[in-house]
């Protein structure tokens, strides 16, 4: 059993070995209990500085990283950069160098450009954690999804997972595909043919454009958020039709296993990709995902900056 990660950074699931994924999940499981204490704080990362550098609006992920850092006693600083100011303002390279000059221990970055975390990781000596880059990866989301599934199912290998929605623009889908394939799971993706990226099958997944076929026998269904701007770009005709074809409701769920788990990276569009009775129903683990998000991010921060 390994006890640390190979890289100083967490840039994508693609770079992780199955052993590293298990190490992160095991660490998260052991740290999860801290969040249930009366005093939700341990001194593990006392004196460490973590910068949340967010170039895209985010509530859940940024807050989750902030809470994770604080529960481990790190000093967490949030920097939000609106994309409009980027055009006029300093380059990402200069921002990164300026942050480096303040000696942080980790920079958590969310950016609309795929590859931006790789770019700054080459510049920064401290750890860089990808909190979502463009349509590329969102590694901590995939890890918290795995943790949520593992808690419920114990064994990951052999489970059948269906990811439904806009696969083309989804970093959650890509990170989950990498993670789940590495853990020996059976992954299916489905969505409108206009939102399935070229050659996705080469990632080792099955592809459907029919929701009921895609979720047949599924142990886990991950619904992705559909964004209205995709309709404006002519990728599907209307939210109404999208919802009819790819929205999940109790009726359609009959094709899945009886104990199917429903997950969603959030924020959900109620009544669009997921009906209220499914989102709030007994199969839904959406809020467990949020809870596990904190645990997984504590694990990442601890493994990368904890000086084990």
């Amino acid at each position: 059993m390994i006890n640390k990660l190979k890289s100083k950074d967490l840039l994508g699931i693609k770079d992780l070995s199955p052993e590293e994924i298990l190490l992160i999940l095991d660490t998260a499981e052991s740290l999860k209990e801290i969040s249930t204490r009366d005093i939700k704080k341990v001194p593990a990362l006392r004196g460490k500085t973590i910068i949340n550098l967010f170039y895209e609006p985010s509530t859940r992920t940024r807050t989750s990283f902030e809470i994770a850092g604080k529960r481990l006693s790190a000093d967490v600083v949030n920097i939000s950069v609106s994309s409009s100011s980027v055009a006029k303002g300093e380059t990402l390279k200069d921002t990164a160098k300026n942050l480096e000059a303040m000696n942080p221990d980790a920079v958590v970055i969310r950016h609309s450009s795929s590859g931006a975390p790789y770019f700054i990781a080459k510049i920064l000596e401290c750890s860089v954690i990808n909190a979502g880059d463009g349509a590329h990866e969102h590694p901590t989301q995939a890890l918290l999804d795995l943790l949520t599934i593992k808690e419920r199912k114990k064994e990951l290998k052999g489970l059948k997972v269906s990811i439904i929605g806009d696969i083309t623009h989804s970093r959650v889908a890509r990170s989950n595909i990498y993670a789940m394939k590495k853990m020996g799971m059976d992954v299916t993706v489905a969505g409108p043919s206009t939102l399935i990226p070229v050659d996705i099958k080469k990632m080792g997944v099955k592809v459907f454009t029919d929701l009921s076929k895609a979720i047949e026998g599924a142990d886990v269904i991950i619904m992705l958020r559909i964004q209205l701007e995709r309709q404006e770009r002519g990728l599907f005709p209307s939210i109404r039709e999208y919802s009819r074809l790819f929205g999940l409701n109790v009726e359609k769920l009959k094709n899945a296993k009886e104990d199917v788990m429903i997950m969603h990276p959030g924020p959900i569009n109620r009544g669009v990709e997921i009906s209220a009775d499914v989102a709030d129903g007994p199969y839904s683990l959406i809020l467990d995902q949020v809870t596990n998000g904190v645990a997984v991010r504590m694990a990442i921060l601890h493994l990368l900056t904890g000086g084990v």
Partner: protein
Amino acid sequence: MILIKNGRVIDPANKIDAILDILIENGRITEIGKAISHQPSAISLIDASGKIVVPGLIDMHVHLREPGYEYKETVKTGTESALAGGFTSIACMPNTKPVNDNQSVTDFILDKARKEGVVNVYPIGAITKGLKGEELAEIGELKSSGVVAITDDGKPVMNSELMRRGMEYASMFDLPVISHCEDLKLSEGGVMNEGFVSTELGLKGIPDTAEVVMVARDIALAELTGAKLHIAHVSTRGAVSLIKGAKLRGVNITCETAPHYFTITEKEVIGYDTNAKMNPPLRTEDDLKAIKEGLRDGTIDVIATDHAPHEVSEKEVEFDRALFGIVGLETALPLTLKLAHNGVISISEAISKLTINPARILGLNKGTLSVGSDADITIIDLDKEWQVDVTKFKSKGKNSPFQGWHVKGVVEVVIVGGHIKTNYL
């Protein structure tokens, strides 16, 4: 007087490949033959034993950036870069600021080239005013001021009717129309080739179809108008196949590719290297194979660099935000010779695609070693190895994906108009 002795003279236009001497007087080649005698006092003697002696290389697709973007490149640095790469003539694209869509800009470039340039410079004019694709530029005036072709390079003329009229109009002046084939709607927002690599990297792809549909359109327009059409920077199997078919039907069409399209693929983008970002984008192994086939069977007439210098800060950014383009003048020759070393094409074929073929397309009295022609000559050591080091480039642009590559083929001597500009022998 210059006498080049004992070199292996390769002059594809005259089907010469033999050990010969060349005599140069008053800027022209006056004699070519075996063991030319000479009086030692009055002559510069170049011993080219073991080297190849070829017509000065011609690059018909260069962005000199001046006027307007002198921080990226100037006529001076661009021509110095050309010289370093063995080129004696280059044609420069009109996407400057202001655009070369009128006589004053053409005059400015030619004047700069006379004063500061170290190789011959042939401006290419715009098809439409400001490259806006709205109305024709004054192509007649551009022709009379010295442009050798017209193009809206970088910005295809999307309006098919306007492209038709541009081609018809250009035929009056026997000017070739160079087309950058890209359907801007199909490529919108794209930053690399569309395929498995773009899917994995989460980058917006540009399908090969964006090139192919426009090549198809322009072939149809060439058939309609009879204009001289030249397709720039062919990067896809589909385009090669369409052009091959058009040539078989007798359409008045030529085309070029760039060294990167037969040397590297979309896989270079993995790791988000912005020096692998250009337009058209690097394609797949299969496309690369088709480009090589096209070079071999003659479908692709010309190798041109699409030399596109940018400032470091325009490349050291997020992949999405990086500008398209790479420099090419100082790596084109060894990358082309690699095709010959690997037996894809002969050395003579490689040289013809860098000399006589672009000269014929642009109507230049260049690209041969015929007696009476301009004494533009490049002498090359075919087998000498060197390592690409962008910091040593004469170009202001350092944006090359070939940094650190070990390559073969060194420029030893360059003669432009009878003047020895470079001599390492």
